């Protein structure tokens, strides 16, 4: 290969990268605009339909909250307490102990007076062996399924097998649901009986004040790494999920918080245990199941039910998480690649799936390659100025536009970071995330692509500080008490 040929190939790749960035960011911008429309429409609808009357309504369907937990001794009691305080007329809590090796089960037994009881399964999705079923003597709606270790998907399947209600809510045991989260997420199921799944919003709780199993005071994280993730979550959920939902193309429901119709999930075979992205895989499979069987269905995203989660605070933890997410995405899309441009799947096949397949799944490879060649061209040769300028425009400046737009969407809708300083921080982070953080995430995702190609199946250990720990670290009990008091007086009014 001559130098000229090599140069031509490099240039072609560079322009392909530019085209990729442009397409990706334009898609984000388009979904942000749809999200803007959707959020306005939804907030008006919320004003018209009174949420309180839904809570008291006897027509609210029963829900089982399934929370798989592995070695969550730090957070499990807080999580269960928070779940017991949910404002919903009819629900069961099912904690699935996935063969924990720490003190989680003994802690739960002691805290909630669990006793072993017989309980028959209602479906037979294969799972690891069940060691026992426990019920709380103090709280009739609290159950614990103890089983051999088999992973998150396996635990969810075990929970589904013992679920007796028509709907189940899947959540992570290290998450805190807001009190009215179930009431809000059940709305699509009431309004449209064809609804089979709905996802809620995930927010980051690091550094917020947690008291009594709930977020008493929302604070912007102090660590820059977590701050960037806050912004990323806003972009992913508002611009991404909400925008795609307006288009009727919801392909992802976060495993941290989603509500499903049990019978359809059972018919579709439950969660896949061979992927680390079981949440996305299930949603894609539900689309496939319903379309191939001509079952009328709706899958949607609801912007106001909130689950609070802990984001990784170290680069290593973040790298593991993104590696896993990328692997999950690739496995889900590869297993169902037949949906791609398949007329049977309509908008899913021609819009949503191609977006995830070409831009999200292959994106890290193109992006990573793009950054490498950009640096190579800049440092090893004299770059064409037009190329440098175009690269900076589509990757950096366009990125800033999108990040700032997601902050605007947050301000338009729920404004969960009340201090003016938080808004300033969010806006500054919107700019700075494009200089280093985004590139770092690309590297982690690229590593995920490599791991996926080498069939790595490990979950990746998560670092947990525990919600109790968060509260203690704040060392601000008076403030917590004052905040709670205000909330109580607000509720009383």
């Amino acid at each position: 290969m001559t130098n000229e040929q090599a140069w031509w190939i490099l240039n072609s790749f560079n322009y392909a990268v530019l085209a990729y960035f442009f397409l990706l960011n334009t898609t984000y911008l388009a979904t942000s605009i749809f999200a803007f429309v959707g959020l306005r429409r939804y907030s008006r609808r919320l004003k018209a339909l009174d949420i309180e009357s839904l809570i008291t309504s006897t027509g609210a369907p029963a829900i089982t909250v399934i929370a798989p937990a592995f070695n969550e001794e730090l957070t499990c009691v807080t999580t269960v307490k928070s779940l017991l305080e949910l404002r919903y007329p009819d629900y069961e809590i099912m904690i699935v102990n996935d063969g924990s090796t720490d003190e989680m089960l003994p802690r739960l037994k002691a805290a909630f007076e669990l006793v072993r009881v017989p309980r028959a399964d209602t479906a037979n999705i294969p799972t690891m062996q069940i060691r026992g079923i426990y019920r709380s003597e103090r709280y009739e709606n609290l159950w614990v399924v103890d089983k051999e270790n088999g992973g998150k998907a396996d635990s969810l399947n075990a929970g589904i097998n013992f679920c007796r209600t028509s709907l189940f809510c899947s959540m992570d045991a290290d998450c805190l649901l807001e009190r009215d989260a179930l009431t809000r997420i059940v709305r699509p199921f009431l309004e449209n009986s064809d609804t089979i799944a709905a996802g809620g919003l995930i927010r980051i709780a690091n550094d917020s004040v947690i008291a009594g199993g709930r977020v008493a005071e929302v604070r912007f994280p102090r660590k820059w790494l977590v701050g960037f993730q806050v912004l990323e979550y806003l972009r992913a959920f508002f611009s991404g999920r909400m925008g795609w939902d307006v288009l009727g193309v919801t392909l992802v429901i976060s495993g941290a918080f989603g509500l499903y119709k049990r019978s359809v999930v059972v018919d579709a075979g439950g969660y896949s245990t061979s992927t680390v992205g079981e949440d996305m895989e299930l949603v894609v499979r539900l689309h496939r199941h319903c379309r191939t069987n001509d079952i009328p269905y709706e899958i949607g995203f609801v912007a106001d039910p909130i689950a609070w989660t802990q984001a990784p605070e170290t680069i290593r933890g973040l790298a593991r998480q993104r590696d896993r997410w990328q692997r999950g995405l690739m496995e889900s899309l590869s297993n169902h690649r037949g949906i791609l441009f398949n007329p049977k799947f309509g908008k899913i096949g021609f819009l949503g799936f191609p977006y995830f397949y070409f831009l999200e799944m292959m994106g890290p490879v193109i992006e990573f390659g793009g950054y490498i060649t950009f640096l190579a061209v800049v440092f090893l040769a004299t770059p064409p100025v037009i190329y440098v300028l175009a690269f900076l425009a589509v990757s950096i400046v366009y990125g800033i536009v999108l990040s700032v737009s997601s902050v605007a969407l947050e301000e338009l809708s729920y404004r969960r970071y009340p201090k003016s300083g938080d808004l300033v921080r969010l806006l500054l982070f919107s700019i700075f995330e494009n200089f280093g953080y985004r590139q770092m995430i690309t590297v982690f995702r690229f590593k995920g692509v490599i791991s996926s190609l080498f069939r790595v199946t490990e979950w990746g250990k998560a670092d947990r500080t525990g919600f109790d720990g968060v509260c203690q670290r704040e060392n601000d009990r008076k403030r917590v008490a004052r905040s709670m008091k205000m909330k109580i007086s607000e509720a009383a009014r």
Partner: protein
Amino acid sequence: MKVFARILLGGAIAATLVSPASATFAGQKDAYAAAIRRSFTEPDFLYNVALSHPFLLFLIASIAVLFIMSCVFCGLAVTYRRRNNAMAARWIRMEAEWEPYVVSVLNGEQLPVSVGDHVRGEDRLYFVDFLTRFTMRFQGEELEKISELARPFLPDVAAHLHMKSAAQRARAVQTLGVLAFSRYSVEILNALDDESPLVAMIAARTLSKKEHPEYVEPVILRLYRFHQWSPKFLASMLSTIGPKAAPLLRKAYAERSNDSQVRAVAAESLRMLNDLSSADLAATVLAEEKESETLTDREKRRRSAESARSSEKEMEEARLEGFDPGVAAASSAPVEPVREAVEGIPHPHRDLIASSLRLVRSFGRPEHADTARLFCDSSDFVLREFAFRALGRVGGGEDVQRLQDALDDSSVWVALHAARALRELGAENALRTLAEIEQPRSDIARQVLAESVR
């Protein structure tokens, strides 16, 4: 200043394009410096460079547009924040102003006639919203006083009934329903026919809360408009009307020309209203449904055959289309087929029959047991389940064997409810025997026995 600097930068970059000296870093530096100098000294320099390099101009313009967009979004975020903060502050100030006045009116210390002195023109709708919140806490005389306070401002709210936005219309219906139903009942009734299902639903909910039979019929007649809503939710809404609605609901339930979903909702509402007399009606409906089932069975067999053919076709198509059946089988498909998928095709009137069987279970007498038995062998597992649940209440000793056999039903739900029915009929011995041995359904027996201890 920033725009000027950007143009300057553009000029400098353009200079590198036109300058042959840009082959090295030093050359580039000189070219930039020269370009910046020329942009100051030669007024037409930037203009000429831009014209000779249209793509560069486009690029710079794009960056400028993106920059402006960032500023706009940034401005929007700040504006939203400031506006919302201002609104919240204003709301708090107005509440602090209005609350003592409203409380004094409720206590009878002041008359509601002076309300105009307390509410500024632009705050009228806020005041109505404020009063609406009070309506949740008060009833009777106090509620009338609140309505009286809202009266001067309600025409403004009523004007929203003709707005383009469905959400605005819905909100107006809700507010008028709470604060001045009798005055705006015609408008609310008309809203049942609003083109937006949301507005129609708000109107239906408002009318359902009024406990007046004359408002029930229009709601029931329009139930078909709410076919997408959850039947349980609709039944709950209708049951809030109270016992006065029962005759109309019975009529809707019995009417064979009605849609089966509408009849199912009516039946469920009757159950929620504890309407004892509807058990006889349920028995009649069940008998009628059984009669027409012969035809249904024929249809079912046809559909079953079609379904089998299409399944084979789907598998073949899946292979051709690139689905990976191997991966799917390894990852998610159960070892044996999931029961619900093979437990028969749903009866076309499943909801109606299930609701009727629920009525029999709730209010039936032993003479209704025969109608429940009609569905013990249904090919739809949901109907078998409800039939056994009904037998648990209205059945007798002759049903014990049938229920024992049902413990081995292909559906675990049917087996579970058969076991519960056995317990209700006092035939716990059969359950104990099953619980003591190791069988696939032993867990069900153990669970049901444990439930009886609790």
